[in-house]
């Protein structure tokens, strides 16, 4: 199925959770936040959150400067 990952269309298997997606793309979890369809998903739910067709995933880092 197709989802959007930071505005890029990618093809994934329909069983993918958010955690599997991060593992597959080898994305570092340090300072990382993840949102599905503009709602931030807490870290403890990444492994239990299954992705759906057309989900828009946003991955972004904490920033500290000011």
């Amino acid at each position, binding site marked *: 199925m197709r989802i959007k990952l930071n505005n890029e269309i990618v093809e994934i298997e329909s069983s993918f959770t958010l955690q599997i997606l991060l593992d597959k793309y080898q994305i570092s979890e340090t300072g990382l936040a993840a949102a599905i369809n503009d709602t931030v998903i807490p*870290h*403890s739910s990444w492994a239990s959150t299954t992705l759906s067709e057309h989900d828009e995933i*946003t991955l972004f880092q904490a920033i500290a400067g000011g």
Partner: protein
Amino acid sequence: MNVALSQPEQLRYARQMLLPELGENGQLRLKQAHVLIIGMGGLGCPAAMYLAAAGVGSLVIVDFDTVERSNLHRQILYQEHQIGRNKAQQGAINLHAMAPDVSYQVVREKVTADNVFSLVSNVDLVLDCTDNIHTRLLINQACVNLQRPLISGAAIGFKGQLLTLPMTVNSPCYQCIYHSTPDDQSSCLQDGVMGPLVGVIGSMQALQAIKYLSQIGSLHQEAKLHRFNAIDMQWQNLALTVDPNCPVCAGKPLRSKDAY
């Protein structure tokens, strides 16, 4: 403090009191408010200037650092001849010249685990305008424990983030969003930052603070994260949820409905 507005105050704030959402009641709420601004750099300067100009009654401004020449492209409260002065002290002097009705308390200290709780406990609202992750985590912890609303701004390069966390039962804390944080964060020192970008984020911290204090909109109920990309001028508005396993707020009185 005299709660009624004086004649000069009526005039000074006339254009914002015209707004039906604010009115005289909202202005009186601002006048009675105590706000803590931690960090008087690129975010803290515009945030403090707008809160002082808007008539927030009492500002506690915290910074241990001194004004440097390389700050001046973004820290717009300070003047060339004030290089070398403490930012909190000089900031209060410059703010007083602009808005003398406001009470300013200057704290020329680094925020640590030893002083953060007493700083946060004495105010109605906290603005995190700091430049490092360690202090951000300390401020979040204190706001969780003392149930104080937190408006956190951050900016680097061309990217900004604005977090509004009311610290109520259903609102997350900073670490519900960022479960782990790197020890070594990128900073303005290493990576550079666009001056007007910190102005945008700092101004929006002031805007959120004014709305929160005068009870405009739904900020009391709803935590929000706004991300800004200054290159393509895109904002992303994100809803937030509590992490039931958050290392900071899980199990705290904040999460107990009995607290309310």
